């Protein structure tokens, strides 16, 4: 696998240099990216973070109405505790910080340690974990699920709630409800490779695909031959709807997410089918998102996320927001 990089040890540093150089709204301090405009004033802050290799996640969602800061780890490794601490400090405007990130062991341990340390300095934190990947544990163990692309819905609603001046618990509650109402399933067509590794994380045959694979290449639900896009999309929508929350209404937002190497053309072909299936099931789609929002470097494939909206979440989803990779006017 060819990668446009230099010394693989510098992959993350050089990537971050380029990112902030190209996006003056972002400001970098070591392994923390925060808004160049400064820390939040008099409102709850939101910090996220995780391993590198998922652009635009996480750093790309720093901006008004979304995140205040991100802690960045090495490729597929959680951010270290120091970065977590600094990210939380950068997001602190005196009214507490929501730590909002995906449910992975390393990320959790480091953010937890950072929160413990900061509690001593009087910085209040709350934690909400993204757990949207339905392929990563069954419904009975939903809290053990991994966080994948659907996390950006929680960024959006929590960011909008924070912008209203809500208290930390209220912002965390919105994030929690968003996560509870968001479901994702992924489909991989090809592997990715760690910059420092000698071979791809996994291999798929010339005609093979894997349903349910995680955004780090974690094994999925089944591996089989390639099928038509509509058949794959139908299965994914079916699996997602079978896991709809008990109180889901008929309003839904959908994210058809490219995993990195899949062309936009194919994402739109998938979106077309997904929208038809949802409409046939009586759903009305609001604010669909189609594009590479949460990737796994050069992995080819797609994930579909559904966020089952209620009035309040729909309102927060529609609130203005602006970051380098997502904008709601």
């Amino acid at each position: 696998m060819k990668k446009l990089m230099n010394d693989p040890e510098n992959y993350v540093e050089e990537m971050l240099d380029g990112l902030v150089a190209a996006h003056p709204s972002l400001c970098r301090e070591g392994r923390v990216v925060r808004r160049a405009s400064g820390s939040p004033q008099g409102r709850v802050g939101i910090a996220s973070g995780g391993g590198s290799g998922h652009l635009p996640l996480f750093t790309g969602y720093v901006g008004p109405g979304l995140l205040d800061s991100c802690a960045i780890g090495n490729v597929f490794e959680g951010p270290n505790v120091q970065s977590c601490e600094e990210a939380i400090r950068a997001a602190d405007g005196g009214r507490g910080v929501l730590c909002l990130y995906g449910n992975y062991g390393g990320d959790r341990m480091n953010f937890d340690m950072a929160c413990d340390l900061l509690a001593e300095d009087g910085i209040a934190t709350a934690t909400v974990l993204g757990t949207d990947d339905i392929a990563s544990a069954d419904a009975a163990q939903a809290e053990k699920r991994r966080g994948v692309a659907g996390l950006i819905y929680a960024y959006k609603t929590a960011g909008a709630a924070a912008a209203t001046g809500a208290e930390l618990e209220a912002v965390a509650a919105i994030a929690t409800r968003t996560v509870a109402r968001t479901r994702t399933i992924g489909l991989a067509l090809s592997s990715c490779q760690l910059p420092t590794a000698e071979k791809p994380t996994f291999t798929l045959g010339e005609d093979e695909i894997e349903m349910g694979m995680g955004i780090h290449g974690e094994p999925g639900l089944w591996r089989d031959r390639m099928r038509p896009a509509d058949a794959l999309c139908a299965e994914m929508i079916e699996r997602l709807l079978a896991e709809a929350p008990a109180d889901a209404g008929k309003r839904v937002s959908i994210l058809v997410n490219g995993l990195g190497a899949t062309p936009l053309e194919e994402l739109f072909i998938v979106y077309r089918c997904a929208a038809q299936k949802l409409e046939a099931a009586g759903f009305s789609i609001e604010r669909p998102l189609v594009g590479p929002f949460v990737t796994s470097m050069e992995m080819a494939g797609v994930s579909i996320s559904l966020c089952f909206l209620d009035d309040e979440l729909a309102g927060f989803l529609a609130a203005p927001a602006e970051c380098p990779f997502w904008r709601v006017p």
Partner: protein
Amino acid sequence: MSGLAVADLAVALARLRDRADMLEARLNEADAKLGDGDTGSMVARVVERMAEVDLSTQDDVGQAFGQLARAASAATGSSLGTLLATALLTAARESRGSEALPWSQISALCAAARDAMAARGRASLGEKTVLDGLDGLAQALDGLDEPAAMQAAAREAMTSTLDAFRDRPCQVGRARLFAERSVGLDDPGMLALALMVDVALPAGEPGAGETTRDVAR
């Protein structure tokens, strides 16, 4: 009084650094099967950062463990790396102020590290993780205070723990989700511990060496 001194740590780190490529390749491969394929690159980086720590003027084992904990923790935020840093921090607390940690206390130190890691990772013994490896080590070293015997026991413990868990399902970390699939495969974290123990210790007796060479094949 004989025991683990800072110089022993430096020598162990030098050995680990020498074999970092082997660790990287084998552990990435193990993690690629069950997780996200990064255990090896992470371990290699953590080893390198720890080996870069200048311990030459340090006499206090506890302080040395503390320096290594900080180096490890700065180098990664991955599950295993964070747990390793937790273990080193525990070791630092347990041995602060001494120039040599008595060999007889190594077992207790492993047990303390195991408990701290379990608390940090919210995991339990028996779930087929690095914790079970450390638990095997703590048990095997219990009551021993002679380095050569301890080395042999440590290697033997790692081999037998890997064997004992290989055909059981992983229940924590990324691998828990594929319980069946993990049957027959070594847990990457446990394997990491086993390989690192094997590499860090001086080459053992031919017999013990065979066993662990097998592990490190």
